[in-house]
């Protein structure tokens, strides 16, 4: 039998959430694109690590990532400050779309006459990771995963590999995505976005209308496990056996969750909180609900909740789910931001949380946070 994975200590976590009320993205092209509403930050978070001048030069995705990282580092405390051998891993579903768009818009409108070098430099998808490394002096590995709905899980999984291999003692892991009119346009084209401005209620009555796009960031400082510190034990993401989410077999999904837990030597009956990535898209929410029924049928004491009503849908959103699971394990109770579907206040203390995603793009993932 393979040795159970120990995982990494979540020394601190930080969240950057968008405004609670969805609104129309104030982009110049929004009207032309007939965009629906989204969750976004009407005011970008302030950064404490940089001067206002330096922050002004940073673009949206970088500012979101930096704020999340700062909050995670502050929560971890000075004693856990990573040395310069620390690594940075970022997961971002679509990367630095805003700067890519800014460069191309300028190029098209001015017919290549006056390209914007700053926008080009900032359009590189690893720009947030680079900025984090520069800000915090981290010269270990710097990796950026850009694989849509599982970008955050891939980044967290890679962070675990880095720590297990002893390549770094600490990894600053961040999931970030920025709201973009073009991403919203693509989502509308794919038919998965709502046009109503009402708040998102994943797996609720209004979930048949599609999801709402969003933005946000979550940072986790990962390091050596320690008593009293939540552990990220597993982060696993895979394509579904069949890309059609309606063909998901609840028993097979339960086995997928069970197998991931088994890597950490944890059985399903020890899971106190099942945090879902349900996002209001009818097909995936319906499939997710079937999985939850299958799991809770055998484990009715498990609390179950959702979180995407806080941030909308974006590729790196699972990082926020993991941060909320970490907060729940750290506090011993379901974090107040989570919307409970089952259990909640009446649930038993939270010592192990599972963040489970079943995404309409054809992926599923499991992240395990335990005490």
């Amino acid at each position: 039998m393979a040795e159970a994975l120990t995982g990494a200590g979540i020394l601190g976590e930080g969240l950057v959430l968008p405004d609670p009320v969805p609104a129309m993205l104030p982009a110049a092209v929004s009207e032309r694109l007939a965009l629906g509403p989204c969750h976004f930050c009407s005011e970008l978070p302030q950064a404490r690590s940089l001067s206002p001048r330096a922050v002004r030069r940073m673009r949206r995705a970088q500012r979101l990532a930096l704020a999340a990282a700062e909050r995670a580092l502050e929560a971890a405390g000075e004693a856990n400050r990573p040395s310069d051998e620390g690594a940075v891993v970022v997961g971002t579903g679509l990367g630095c779309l805003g700067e890519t768009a800014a460069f191309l818009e300028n190029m098209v409108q001015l017919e290549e006459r006056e390209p914007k070098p700053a926008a080009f430099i900032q359009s590189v998808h690893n720009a947030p990771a680079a900025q984090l490394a520069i800000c915090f002096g981290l010269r270990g590995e710097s990796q950026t995963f850009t694989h849509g709905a599982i970008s955050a899980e891939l980044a967290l999984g890679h962070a675990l590999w880095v720590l297990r291999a002893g390549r770094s003692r600490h990894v600053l892991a961040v999931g970030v995505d920025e709201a973009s009119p073009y991403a919203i346009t693509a989502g509308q084209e794919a038919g998965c976005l709502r046009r109503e401005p009402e708040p998102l209620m994943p797996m609720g009555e209004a979930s048949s209308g599609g999801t709402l796009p969003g933005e946000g960031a979550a940072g986790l400082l990962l390091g050596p496990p320690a008593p009293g510190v939540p552990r990220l034990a597993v982060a696993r993401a895979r394509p579904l056996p069949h890309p059609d989410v309606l063909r998901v077999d609840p028993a097979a999904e339960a086995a997928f969750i069970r197998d991931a837990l088994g890597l950490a030597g944890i059985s399903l009956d020890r899971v106190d909180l099942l945090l879902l990535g349900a996002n209001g898209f009818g097909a995936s929410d319906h499939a997710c609900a079937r999985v939850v029924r299958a799991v809770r049928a055998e484990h009715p004491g498990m609390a179950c909740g959702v979180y995407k009503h806080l941030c909308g849908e974006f590729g790196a959103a699972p990082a926020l789910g993991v941060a909320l699971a970490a907060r729940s394990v750290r506090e011993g109770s379901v974090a107040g931001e989570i919307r409970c579907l089952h259990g909640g206040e009446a649930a038993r203390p939270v010592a192990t949380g599972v963040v489970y995603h079943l995404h309409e793009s054809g992926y599923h993932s499991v992240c395990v946070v335990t005490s």
Partner: protein
Amino acid sequence: MCRQRVAVTGLGIVSAVGCSPAAVWAAIEREASGLGALSLFPSQRCGHIPVAEVRGEPADRSGLRSGSRTDHLAACAARDAFAQAALEALPEALRRQVGVVLGTTTGGILDSEAFLERLLAQGELAPELLRHHPPASPAEAVAGALDLVGFRATVSTACASGATAIAVACDALAAGEADAVLAGGADSLSRLTVNGFGSLLNVAADGCRPFDAGRTGLSLGEGAAVLALETEQHARERGAPILAWILGCGSSCDAYHATAPRPDGSGAAAAMRAALAVAQLEPQAVDYVNAHGTGTRDNDLAEGLALRAVFGDRVPAVSSTKRFFGHTLAAAGAIEAVVCILALEHQRVPANLGLRQADPEIGIHPVPHTCDAQVRVALSNSLGFGGSNGSIVLARAS
């Protein structure tokens, strides 16, 4: 990064100098550069600058019903690697678990450019053109074309993406996430990159001359390369031909500047040392270094200093092959890994094309012509924007 050696069992490459390992090596022997006129799209500002463009239409042989140019490039290379490794001979359940890890910087940007052109210049909305924009699109295309549902990832670490993808694949194999992985990188030429690099004033008007005293900048290219990687046990159990070994991968970050490398080359040196440490080799074991060598003043100087820091007075045979392929961005690390494998096979070192006089400030002496050499171990460097550095140590199969 990877602790046990990884077997390379298949290669696929699409480039301006050829779309097979044999064609690429023939071009290296002829010392024939792939640089030429840009014909893929009109560019008022940059159309006169030589680029390395893939000739022919990748969509004709990718097997994809639809996709961006980058998707087609990636699928062509992946199909060839998959076929050479004979992975289709695996039982279906195992075959479908083959993983895909690709690097890309701009993904389907050509289609996205067309979307914006139609929207802003003509007022037409064509959102279907954004379908292949996401960076994950090439990996999705490869997985879809080959019906693979195993471990899958896309990395984007600028010009180090191809090397990073190979390293992540090695990690996945070591962690038991897969027994075989298709790993590599792909990027197409685009108006974004042609104008973007042009705006930085670091593109050579007469083609790149890596490490040359008179170098003036880089030359852009496009292409894809994919390696079929397997655990040694998996490769041996199914009797797969082993073309080369990956002994170690190393990564570091300069943490210095958004684009410029750390001037003392310490970041690149750290990546090389990390790769050698995983490979459990001393620097003097390396017979050939395929340098990142873009031809820019800063990169070449920093990398030269890094090589001298790692190898001291005994820098092995070095060459940059960027004047053959152009700088293919995310594909570069993977293309250059293929070049290293071909050097190991042929026991010859590729020329550092474009070299007239080695820059004395850099202090290394790249190989001016393709020549015989005893090549048992090769090291490939990829150094990207944002200070992402990747190095791979490869060894001869026999």
